[in-house]
């Protein structure tokens, strides 16, 4: 691919205290591409996502969105408008209704046509009809779906999802899978982490394994078999941080 990548990192490093989490991680992700990142617990998947979401600042190296360094302070709000982030925690206000939550974030991101956008998203995550119920009455899966809608409320170009499949029933999982395939078609770049190798491989254009602080395995889907991925994961993920 010759077009410049939407998101890239050069020698990204992150230390927690003195403990290195990421070491010299290089990543390139283009528009219209999705990448599934696997790795054992503590491999730094979440850290990577949080850095790309501008929530953490790397201790070394730099990450770029469209060649703009993520640390560029003057550009920060501009950058953040283009990034959507789904974290482990739902980032929803439990006492507010689904609609109020979405409207709040839509306002914060300055989304035009708020009402329509929110209705659209609620429909997409199949929460139509429940939009005026407080989030605390939702099941885990419903909350996860609403959290996903929240992350997409401002139609971000870069979509970062941390374990999006967790807490979803099979039906919702397959819906999410369809969505993750649909987003790249609309020119978005998607990066998500998962424990579920098969699901990730089925959805993403590329799969990568994070081990030892950088990508130890990074390959397009076409040239990866599930058996190969499982074998690679088994040999790499055991190697600690």
């Amino acid at each position, binding site marked *: 691919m010759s077009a410049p990548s939407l998101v890239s990192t050069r020698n990204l490093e992150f230390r927690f205290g003195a403990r290195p989490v990421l070491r010299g991680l290089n990543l390139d992700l283009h528009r219209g591409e999705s990448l599934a990142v696997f790795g054992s617990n503590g491999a730094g998947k979440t850290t990577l996502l*949080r850095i790309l*979401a*501008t*929530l*953490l*600042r790397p201790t070394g190296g730099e990450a770029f969105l*469209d*060649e*703009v*360094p993520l640390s*560029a302070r*003057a*550009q*920060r*709000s*501009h*950058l*953040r*408008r283009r*990034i959507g*982030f789904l*974290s*482990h*925690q*739902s*980032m*929803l*206000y*439990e*006492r*507010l209704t689904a609609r*109020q939550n979405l409207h*709040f*974030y839509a*306002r*914060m*991101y*300055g989304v035009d046509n708020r009402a329509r956008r929110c209705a659209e998203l609620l429909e997409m995550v199949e929460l139509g009809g429940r939009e005026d119920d*407080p989030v605390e009455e939702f099941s885990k899966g419903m909350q996860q779906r609403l959290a996903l809608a*929240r992350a997409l409320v401002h139609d971000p170009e870069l979509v970062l999802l941390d374990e999006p499949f967790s807490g979803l029933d099979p039906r919702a999982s397959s819906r999410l899978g369809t969505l993750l395939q649909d987003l790249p078609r609309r020119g978005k770049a998607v990066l998500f982490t998962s424990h579920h190798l098969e699901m990730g491989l089925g959805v993403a254009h590329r799969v990568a394994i994070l081990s030892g602080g950088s990508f130890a395995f990074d390959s397009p889907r076409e040239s990866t078999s599930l058996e190969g991925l499982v074998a690679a994961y088994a040999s790499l993920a055991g190697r600690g941080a």
Partner: protein
Amino acid sequence: MPRWLAAGREVAPLNATPPALVICVKDLQQELKTRESFTAAFFFALLVQLVFSFAFDFQSLGLGFQDVGAGVLWITLTFSSILSLQNSFVIEREKNCLAALALCPCDPSSVFLGKFLANLIFVLAVQAFVLPISALFFGYDLAAVALPLSLVVVVNAAGFSALGTLFAAISVRTRRSELLLPLLLFPAATPVVIWGVKATRLCLAGRGLEAYEYLVGLSACFGAIFAVAGVLLFDYVLEE
């Protein structure tokens, strides 16, 4: 010139609601739904007054309310404010909404201003209910001093909330935030409490505004200083 520099700072569209206001409205919505902050602060304020009337038996000691009333009112206000300040950020921490706020494409100072505004409104709402009740309890004429007293309360509560919002955001990031907030806030808020008590005492004694306008001015300065400090420093508090 690199492309990212040329792109220029993005300006929010004019018709958009300022983020600070959006946050404040969100907090009010939440509070209207549950009333948990108000209920807790209100009943706590009543309890404090109750304990005071037990502790200082005004009637048999022959104390008038203007002698100790200012102190009672300020202890009530500061202690109950701590509760709502705490709650205001505990709510944000529950599902890590704090991170979502930090990620919003607005200036971190807007988050501070929004939370500050919402906190101030809570404190004043609680006071609006507590003051009449304390007037009933302690038998002083609230109507006669209502206007100057509310000026004193508004200005000093603003100063207290400005510093309190900053410190609540700090303490909520630590383990045992509920212990840390009073520990941080009470000593640092000494000035605004002293000036508030002094002004309230003069006010309750029926003195004219000119007798304590300098105190109100000083409290306003206190509020301004820490509001500016909050605006400038909140970025570091929000950062993960």
